[in-house]
């Protein structure tokens, strides 16, 4: 019971703390949107060193609708043999419309056995989440998925 309450408060603080997110929720201006998109794209470019990631081989599983943006389950799996010569080095989660677009990086080794991770993340608002995989041959793969975040009954 108390745990649920903390999460609700947490969510509200999250929205308040991110002025940009609130602004986008109340008045979706194309300017603000472009700025956020640029940041995520800039981050992507930084991570790939300018290389263009291709789609496929990465599976990003998230709920279509997340009732509580404070804790949204996310599962990522990358199709890779995970041998010493050919493996997935890392996956990075990017949330373009979060106040901090960089969410996390998970670094694998061939000992991982599978390039698979399951975690829980925060989403400030409805958005498309990205999962970028770096392969041992230096190539990049990407998967994107849309998650709708519904605002709780107590406003927001």
């Amino acid at each position, binding site marked *: 019971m108390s745990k649920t309450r903390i999460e609700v408060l947490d969510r509200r603080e999250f929205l308040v703390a991110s002025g940009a997110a609130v602004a986008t929720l109340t008045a979706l201006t194309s300017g603000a949107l472009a700025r956020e998109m640029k940041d995520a794209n800039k981050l992507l470019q930084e991570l790939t060193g300018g290389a263009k990631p291709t789609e496929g081989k990465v599976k990003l599983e998230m709920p279509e609708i997340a009732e509580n943006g404070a804790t949204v389950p996310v599962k990522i799996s990358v199709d890779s043999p995970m041998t010493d010569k050919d493996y997935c080095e890392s996956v990075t989660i990017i*949330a373009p419309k979060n106040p901090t677009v960089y969410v996390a990086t998970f670094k694998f*080794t061939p000992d*991982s056995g599978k390039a698979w991770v*399951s975690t*829980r*993340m925060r989403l400030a608002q409805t958005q498309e989440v990205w999962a970028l995989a770096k392969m041992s041959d230096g190539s990049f793969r990407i998967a994107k998925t849309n998650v709708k975040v519904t605002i709780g009954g107590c406003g927001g």
Partner: protein
Amino acid sequence: MGKARVKVPKKAKKGEIITIKTLIKHKMQRATKDKKTGKPIKRNIIHTFEAKFNGKPFLTAEWDTGISANPYTAFTHRVSESGEYEFVWKDDAGQTYTAKARIEVA
């Protein structure tokens, strides 16, 4: 804060890929301001997580504020021998939290 729970199978076959589940109690506090006093609240999140087997890291993670409070992470490991897992979480306040588990290979 810092209370960790890990779920590791007790036994495995050589070469088997097992799933490990970890959970740690942590606020994952973003930098913000106190609503009543307006005083700034410092960021305190777990920024690094590491999973080791017999002393060798096989999974490392770098987290930012987008990871939920009480971080949950599940991942896999290919088991080649009996041994000990060590899981390490580090936060902005300089705290290090660890958890251990053993696995026997039949």
